[in-house]
Structure formats: structure tokens, C-alpha cells
């Protein structure tokens, strides 16, 4: 199909599946991820116990209010020269309350040129989203922002 049609289709499918989610539980137990892990455990697993430091070098862009928790855009940008001696090794995107706090771990190299990663994630409800960044010198930096979710996206 033509490129523009492909893009349209991508957006449409996302919208349709959001409006008619096969994802409601009529009361009863809350669903649990097969990879269940809470935020603090996720951070410790990633940093090996090191305490990450909030840093203005990490810019996290998420909407303040997400109408649809199934498709929440997240962009992380890190101020870094991305040279062999000084680059962003990894960007981890974590959530505060999803059953599995981890959403994605992105391993960059100097060949990326700039430290940035963008995607769309599901949020089960209003919660904090955190970018946890690992630098080549072993430092861990973070930036967080709360996202208000009006319709939950995990199902």
C-alpha cells in the first residue's frame, strides 16, 4: 500500500483499539503482568543498587493529561556529546504503577549521534513516568513526570 495509507492505518488501528478495548474487567482481581515488577525493584535491578540522581540533563516529554492510556507518547532526550568517551549507554522508561514497571530499555551507542528515544506506551492509570538514564561513566540520572490518565490503557 502507499506510505500515506500505511501511516493512516497505523493511527486508525490504534484509535479503534483504544475506543473498543478488549480490556475491561468487570470487578474482580486486578490483572497481573507475567513480568510483574514494582518501580523500586526495577530501579535497583537496573542500577545494581546505585542511587540515580534527578538531572536537568534528562528531558522527559509526556503529556500532563492522557485521554487514552493505551497510547501515551513518551520522548526522552539527554544532553550528551555522544562521543566514545562520553555517551548515553541506556535509556530506561519506567512507570510508577503498571504491574510491570518497565516498559522499554534502549541501549544507545555513539553511532546514534544524539541521545533521544521516543515511543508510545500503555499506562494503566494516573501515575508517574520516569526516564532512567545510564551514562558511559556509570552514572545514573533520572527525570520524572506525572501523567493523569482518564481511560486506563492496560486492560
Amino acid at each position, binding site marked *: 500500500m502507499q506510505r500515506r495509507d500505511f501511516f493512516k492505518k497505523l493511527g486508525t488501528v490504534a484509535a479503534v483499539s483504544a475506543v473498543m478495548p478488549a480490556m475491561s474487567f468487570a470487578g474482580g482481581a486486578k490483572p497481573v503482568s*507475567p513480568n510483574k515488577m514494582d518501580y523500586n525493584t526495577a530501579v535497583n535491578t537496573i542500577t545494581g543498587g546505585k542511587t540515580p540522581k534527578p538531572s536537568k540533563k534528562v528531558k522527559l516529554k509526556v503529556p500532563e493529561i492522557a485521554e487514552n492510556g493505551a497510547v501515551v507518547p513518551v520522548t526522552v532526550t539527554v544532553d550528551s556529546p555522544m562521543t566514545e568517551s562520553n555517551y548515553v549507554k541506556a535509556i530506561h522508561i519506567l512507570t510508577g504503577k503498571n504491574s*510491570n514497571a*518497565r516498559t522499554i530499555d534502549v541501549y544507545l551507542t555513539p553511532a546514534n549521534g544524539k541521545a533521544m*528515544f521516543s515511543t508510545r506506551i500503555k499506562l494503566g492509570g494516573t501515575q508517574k513516568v520516569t526516564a532512567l538514564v545510564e551514562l558511559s561513566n556509570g552514572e545514573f540520572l533520572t527525570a520524572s513526570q506525572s501523567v493523569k490518565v482518564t481511560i486506563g490503557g492496560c486492560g
Partner: protein
Amino acid sequence: MQKRKSLIKIKPKRYKNGEIVKVSFMVMHPMHTGMAKDKKTKKIIPAKYINSVKFIYNGKEITSMKVWESLSVNPVFTTYMKINGKGKLTVKYTDNTGEAHEKTKKIKPKG
């Protein structure tokens, strides 16, 4: 194996050697968390989600990702890459049920 529609997009479309361009990879995939119930059958839809993505430029892995189940349906992965010669960008990805695919785009710097 099921074929998946996917796309690699580079912005800007015309670039030179040394330029840092935005690269996006998008793929049609249901990204089932394994926690949702099908409304009709009332049964849990088994987890089926992309779990790894790699960007390989002229044989060198420049970016790799470990993906968990809460990425949105039809996921998009966007980052930057430095143009360093003519060749190919290949995106390889797998899902948790064992599917493995790849998509390639030619890299043709102008000047």
C-alpha cells in the same frame, strides 16, 4: 510465519555523510499484555508482544532495545543515527512467541 507490515522512516529524506538524522521504525503488532480479557469469549488474551528490536547499520549494531509488554499497539521506535557511508539499515525484531522478522532500508547519502 506471519508477515508483518513495517516501515523505516528517515528524516530528512535527503542527507549527507556526517549528518545526524531521525530514524523511526513502525510495525503493525497487537502488543497483547497477557492481562486483558477478550470481551466476547471472556478469556484472557495470551501475551503477544515485541520483545526486542535491533538497528544494524552496515553490519554494526548501533541501537538495541529490550521491549516489555506495555508498549502501545503498532509500536513506534524513534531515535537518531549518524550517517556514515552508503549502505543499509536493517531493523531486526522478535516477539515473545518466537516470531522474528527484519526490515531493511538503503542508506544513500548525497555528498
